């Protein structure tokens, strides 16, 4: 038998046990008529079993009705006491005039609430405004009766917390969506409930919710602190002076849904004070911790609605209902409760403290502590759709980004074919580049609206890279901003493409990618937009003679013209990070770091750095060196390594959190940049052979230095350069056929191994001495 039938049977039995007329199987199966015959069969079996169970016992096996004194009202036959709430007792009664069953609420004579009568009348007025079937209807108000009476629609059902736990999660979501929609209708009329709780929500036999007890509602916007049921009160209701609005009801809806999902309230306390403290702290257990079966999207909705800060909640009950409907339609919900982040942060905190403690007592090295802390910080940052920053990889993600990447490769090759004049006319480029661009964008927009973010971003990405190439071809073919003057003045002048065409295409593509990045908040698209900005900058430089600089090798000019871009990108990264726009900041930081290295390296070529500084090391060079600027170039390159290292250190020490990534990149580059010039020097053979040995010594020193900085990049740079130095020495002296040279190296290696063995032994001794 299916679980659905069992759930329906449970509801049937529950209606029997409540002593009411048993629920009608056809009404129970209104949503699922296919289950009706199964349910009937089960009911027959149940009735038979129940007869066997009850054989010889009391007639119905149910609780005998409690006999207690019931009040009498004119025109009604009071049947039973239904409950108590919102300042009054509620009775089930028969309206003798109309012959219908109603619920009658009377003010308790012993009610301590002084203004209950005012509440009562307020409720009456509020209810009269409603025509929503999900809100209990007011039938009659007897204001002059002593005490006043309110005659309401009688709901034959159970309170939400009684029936809720036996329902499927989808049913619970559907019920909650209806409740939220009904509450939203009340809000539209300017009425807030302010005492929403499961006891105030009934479910009838068709599982339709009915909201009761608008006893505390007032015209929206008026104060309502300190009133309501403590477990369901929002933090702002606990403090005088804080604004109360529709989001206070949204909070209560969140708590009701939380309880409906996992069967227990989010906040508990031995007394009201403890409960209030717990509500203010706003750190409930996650519903899945209480019941692992709770679907995560529903948990997210409940937690989003019951955010501590009203600004973080759904702005209206309607928004909450919409998210619940998304879940019911099988779409992703929008809720991202801050509790996830804060709960993770809270749970990470002891780990971070632990790591710092390990570092303090020297259990781990600083670089290990950095790695561990960085790993934990990555957990704290929001999950990104981009594969590089994704915490979880899936085949779909891999395929999507591979597709986008292949699109880039294919379109670049196509563009190259166009430059080589293998493609003519506009028709084919439209087919190959233009149509895919439009199609992918339309498709991506539709997917993005349907919350399929990862796919949408990949599609946008693939389309964005097609744009500049298509635009350039389009401009050229339609003779917009054509080549003027000499073709040599234009970067792609030989192919008939003007600088202006390049500039407009890069600018438009950059703006387009930026707009998409802003919309999707993804690093992938912001990286593309930054790349287009760099392209735009280079296309501007084309006007100043970029082509000539590259042909002539005047790298310093290129470097100097790149410097403003480095500054602009770095400033943009800093600004965006300061404003919490990490989706753009990260891409800008990495681009800035990369461009910085490129710029200072280009500047160092041909000794230009020293030339701009007005000094030269040429007099220190031996007279037989042909290139007078060789020493300037080499020293500048080595100094670049130092500069990169210093910048990395500054960024790591004083930079914004997101700059740690680029700092690590610079740390990795620095030792290579420091040593590579020496390798080049040795290769030129301009100086005395002693430089080879100096290079070897420095390479070995760098490897050993890694011990002090605990940076593996130093070690790798040291090893690579040691090998390069040995090769250069062999080449310089032409010792390729000298076994003695090889034997010397082997001998030295044995010595180093023995040295290592000795060091290891002494370290072991020291460690064991420490242990003892």
């Amino acid at each position, binding site marked *: *038998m299916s679980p659905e039938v069992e759930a329906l049977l*449970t509801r049937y039995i529950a209606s029997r*046990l409540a002593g009411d007329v048993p629920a009608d199987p056809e009404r129970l199966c209104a949503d699922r008529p296919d289950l009706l015959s199964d349910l009937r*069969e089960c009911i027959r079996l149940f009735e038979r079993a129940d007869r066997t169970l009850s054989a010889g016992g009391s007639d119905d096996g149910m609780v005998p009705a409690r006999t207690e004194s019931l009040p009498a009202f004119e025109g009604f036959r009071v049947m039973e006491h239904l409950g108590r709430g919102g300042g009054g007792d509620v009775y089930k009664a028969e309206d003798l005039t109309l012959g219908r069953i109603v619920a009658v609420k009377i003010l308790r004579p012993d009610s301590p609430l002084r203004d209950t009568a005012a509440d009562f009348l307020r409720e009456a007025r509020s209810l009269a405004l409603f025509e929503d079937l999900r809100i209990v209807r007011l039938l009659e108000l007897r204001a002059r009766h002593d005490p006043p009476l309110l005659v309401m629609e009688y709901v034959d059902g159970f309170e939400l917390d009684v029936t809720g736990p036996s329902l499927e999660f989808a049913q619970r979501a559907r019920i909650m969506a209806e409740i939220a929609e009904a509450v939203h209708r009340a809000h539209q009329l300017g009425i807030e409930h302010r005492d929403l709780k499961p006891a105030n929500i009934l479910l009838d036999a068709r599982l339709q919710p009915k909201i009761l007890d608008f006893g505390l509602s007032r015209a929206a916007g008026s104060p309502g602190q300190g009133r309501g049921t403590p477990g369901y009160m929002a933090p702002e209701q606990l403090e005088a002076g804080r604004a109360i609005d529709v989001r206070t009801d949204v909070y209560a809806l969140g708590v009701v849904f939380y309880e409906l999902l996992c069967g227990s309230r989010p906040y508990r306390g031995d007394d009201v004070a403890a409960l209030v403290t717990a509500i203010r702290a706003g750190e409930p257990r996650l519903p899945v911790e209480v019941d692992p079966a709770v679907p995560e999207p529903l948990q997210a909705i409940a937690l989003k609605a019951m955010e501590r800060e009203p600004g973080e909640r759904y702005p209206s009950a309607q928004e909450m209902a919409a998210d619940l409907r998304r879940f019911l339609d099988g779409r992703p919900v929008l809720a991202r409760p801050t509790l996830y982040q804060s709960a993770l942060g809270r749970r990470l905190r002891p780990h971070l403290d632990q790591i710092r403690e390990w570092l303090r007592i020297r259990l781990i090295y600083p670089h290990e502590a950095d790695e561990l802390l960085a790993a934990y910080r990555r957990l704290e940052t929001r999950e990104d759709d981009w594969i590089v920053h994704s915490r979880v990889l899936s085949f779909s993600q891999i395929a999507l980004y591979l597709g986008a990447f292949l699109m880039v490769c294919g379109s670049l090759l196509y563009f190259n074919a166009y430059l080589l004049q293998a493609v003519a006319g506009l028709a084919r480029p439209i087919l190959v580049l233009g149509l895919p661009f439009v199609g992918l964008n339309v498709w991506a927009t539709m997917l993005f609206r349907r919350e399929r973010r990862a796919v949408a971003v990949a599609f946008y990405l693939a389309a964005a890279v097609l744009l500049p190439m298509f635009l350039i071809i389009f401009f050229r073919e339609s003779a917009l901003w054509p080549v003027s003057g000499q073709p040599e003045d234009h970067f792609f002048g030989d192919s008939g493409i003007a600088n202006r065409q390049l500039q407009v295409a890069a600018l438009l593509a950059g703006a387009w990618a930026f707009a998409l990045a802003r919309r999707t908040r993804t690093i992938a698209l912001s990286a593309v937009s930054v790349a287009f900005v760099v392209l735009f900058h280079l296309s501007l430089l084309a006007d100043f003679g970029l082509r000539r600089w590259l042909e002539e090798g005047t790298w310093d000019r290129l470097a100097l013209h790149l410097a403003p871009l480095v500054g602009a990108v770095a400033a943009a990264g800093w600004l965006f990070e300061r404003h919490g726009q990490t989706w753009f900041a990260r891409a800008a930081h990495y681009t800035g770091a990369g461009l910085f290295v490129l710029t200072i390296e280009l500047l160092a070529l041909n000794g230009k750095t020293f030339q701009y500084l007005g000094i030269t090391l040429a007099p220190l060079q031996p007279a037989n060196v042909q290139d007078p600027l060789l020493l300037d170039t080499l020293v500048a390159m080595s100094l670049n390594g130092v500069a990169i290292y210093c910048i990395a250190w500054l960024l790591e020490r004083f930079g914004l959190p997101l700059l740690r990534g680029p700092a690590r990149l610079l740390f990795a580059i620095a030792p290579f940049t420091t040593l590579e010039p020496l390798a080049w020097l040795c290769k030129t053979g301009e100086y005395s052979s002693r430089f080879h040995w100096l290079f070897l010594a420095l390479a070995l020193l760098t490897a050993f230095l890694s011990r002090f900085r605990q940076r593996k990049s130093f070690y790798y740079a040291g090893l690579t350069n040691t090998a390069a130095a040995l090769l250069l020495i062999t080449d310089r002296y032409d010792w390729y056929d000298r076994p003695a040279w090889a034997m010397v190296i082997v001998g030295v290696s044995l010595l180093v191994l023995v040295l290592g063995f000795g060091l290891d032994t002494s370290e072991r001794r020291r460690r064991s001495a420490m242990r003892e």
Partner: protein
Amino acid sequence: MMDDRLTRTLEDARAGSPDALDLLFRQAAGRLLALIRLRMGPRLRDRLESRDILQSTLLKAFDRFDQLRGGDSQALMGWLVRIAENEIRDQAEFHGRRCRDAAKEAGLDENAAAGLAAQLRSQVSRLILDEDALRLEQAMEAIDPHYREIILLRKFEELDFETIGARLEKSPDACRMLLARALAALTVKLKELS
């Protein structure tokens, strides 16, 4: 006050009235036997005869009739169940070491006891668990113990939901819902067995 009809039935049965005994059996014995069997469980049922326990339970009930507190069938069932549970425990503990003479232990007048015991034995031996009851027993034993317990408390011992709630530390409404789920689970199991 005790329900007049029940009081009379029990008193008459105690005095040896065949009609009263018959009525009593119709009212309670069937369910009591089912409950005894369920409380014993399959392992104990292999070693002990559930009808013996029912018989000694009833004899003890006649003997201690004046200890019965409360006034309806609910109180009577609750009381009988307590006696039956003690009887099961005693017999399980002393089985094999003591041969019990239920009539003697009941402490009734010897002649009356002999007569009553004989009548009881005859009634008990006629008490058969029909197919429905046996299937129900199988289903009861196959469901979750929490479900079994609440069905026993409500349907066999006839406790009200407030008493059950106090015993299970749940609200009466929660107990009612638990019973609904338990009965649904029982029905599912019955459907599987049939």
